[in-house]
């Protein structure tokens, strides 16, 4: 069972839901923080990291002595990562999408595969909970390959919880795609609703069943609830605005730490997800 937690709008409580849910379930669960631009789960869980590895992507390295300046590599590159100046190939590694076209097309076999570091992946444990996250190198633009790497991290757990980045473009798709259920987290405000609609469109495009958590449920208006009802998106949990929760969050504490009774609610949320994912699986 793979659950991705997404939102459209940032700061609605994805990390709060992901960490509290994961910790409430505990054994046999792995939490993957795929918000590699700004990973935050570790700030709340303090996992003990046992493995750190650089995540790289391939880039061309020109062996100038073998290159005859024919420009075939620059011609095939749609990302303008290669250009030929005065018979010499210049490579702009940060523009390279690692398609391998230049290597394939070079008639002199003068291009080797080098690599560029996208970021790091760290993995470890938080008690019984398995954990991994990616951290994009500052200045690196390309998050999806790093997200896919974190997605592949596994240590025998049966339940995977993925904290996705905000938005609806390629990084979010990389985090949500192929998961069994998308748990959308929103706040009941016009911004929350607007971005939720976009997130729901993305989920529909991928054809994944989804449900909703409304955070800070008592601040704002009824727009989100009305929308959810119209669209037939089940509301699985409402978390009220509570200064105690907000302050705990600000310190890096979890809801289930300051209010242990919430652990049961998060376990019930999980049961709700299992039921919904199971029934839609049968329909398919």
């Amino acid at each position, binding site marked *: 069972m793979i659950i991705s937690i997404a939102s459209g709008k*940032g700061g609605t409580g994805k990390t709060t839901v992901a960490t509290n849910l994961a910790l409430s379930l505990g054994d046999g669960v792995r939490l993957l923080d795929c918000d590699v631009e700004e990973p935050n789960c570790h700030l709340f869980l303090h996992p003990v990291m046992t493995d750190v590895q650089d995540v790289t992507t391939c880039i061309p390295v020109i062996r100038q002595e073998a290159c005859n300046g024919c420009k075939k590599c620059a011609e095939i590159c749609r990302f303008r990562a290669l250009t030929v100046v005065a018979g010499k190939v210049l490579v702009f590694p940060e523009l390279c999408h690692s398609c*391998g076209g230049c290597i394939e097309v070079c008639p002199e076999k003068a291009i080797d595969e080098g690599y560029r570091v996208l970021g790091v992946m760290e993995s470890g444990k938080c008690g019984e909970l398995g954990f991994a996250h990616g951290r994009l190198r500052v200045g690196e633009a390309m998050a999806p390959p790093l997200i896919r790497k974190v997605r592949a991290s596994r240590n025998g757990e049966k339940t995977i919880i993925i904290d996705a980045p905000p938005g609806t473009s390629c990084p979010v798709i990389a985090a949500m795609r192929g998961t069994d259920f998308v748990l959308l987290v929103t706040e009941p405000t016009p911004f929350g609703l607007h971005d939720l609609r976009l997130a729901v469109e993305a989920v529909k495009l991928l054809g994944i069943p989804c449900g909703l958590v409304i955070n800070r449920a008592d601040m704002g208006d009824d727009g989100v609830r009305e929308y959810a009802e119209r669209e037939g998106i089940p509301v699985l949990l409402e978390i009220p605005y509570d200064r105690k929760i907000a302050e705990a969050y600000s310190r890096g504490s979890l809801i289930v730490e300051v209010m242990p009774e919430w652990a049961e609610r998060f376990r019930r949320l999980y049961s709700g997800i299992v039921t919904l994912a199971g029934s839609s699986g049968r329909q398919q």
Partner: protein
Amino acid sequence: MIRELVVVSGKGGTGKTSITAAFALLAEKIVLCDADVDAADLHLLMAPRVLGSSDFMGGSKAIIRKKDCTACGRCRDLCRFTAISEDFVVDPISCEGCGVCVDLCPEQAIDFPVQKCGEWFVSDTRMGPMVHGRLGIAEENSGKLVSLVRREARELAEKQGLQLILTDGPPGIGCPVIASIGGATALVIIVEPTVSGLHDMRRVAQLAVHFKVPGLVCINKYDLNPEMAGRVETFAESHNMRVMGHIPFDPVFTQAMIAGQNVLEHAPDSTAAAAIRKVWQEILRFPAMNTLGIKDFSSNIQ
């Protein structure tokens, strides 16, 4: 000289858009620019009247012509994004648009049409002209659309003689953020005093240094955790970023949003409104923002 302030945060939901909209009221003669093309919200507070919209043509996607395909498998071998299925259909979401299969298909059986990846708009608002965009769902090339929207905003400013571009940036530090900050006069980093707010601000601060753009810090909801707000401030100062001020947590932000207004319009007498005015005054005092800076300097010499 046209200046551009880009409002960023690293972490989402710290108040970028609400505060940008309030700044828009205080600033005179501006062009507004929404660079959060992925989940744009500024228009919800601005009620823009769209004057013109254009398609944003991003990258191309491969499409295999069944009738010309001999199922030789060359494209599947070449594709590093595993975007081509066993029965030779390209999955548009996985296709990176590299065109390697297109160029190297022995039968030349693969088309490569340019895709519409979104739209962008030039609008009129009660605070002045606004340029904004909307990336299609699940699309790539968000950075390109951001660059396009910013370029159009700059052209509009030049054409209309407007001196300031106020840009609402996206969250994170990746592709669209990098496209949002290059060449900006300064970043206004909106931080909330939480462990994640501080963590994410550090990364956006590193990005600002990387691209050599000065960072100005504004602490929102500072009273949620004054101790953490102090740590944000210490971090900012030790990294040569000026703290422009503190804005308290205030439900008027949400109420204003529901009314489709900015905080200054909706609750001009609130403490939040007063704090925002103070922050804006501080920003205007920042040397790079002083429109008279160079003139003053020359008059001193005379």
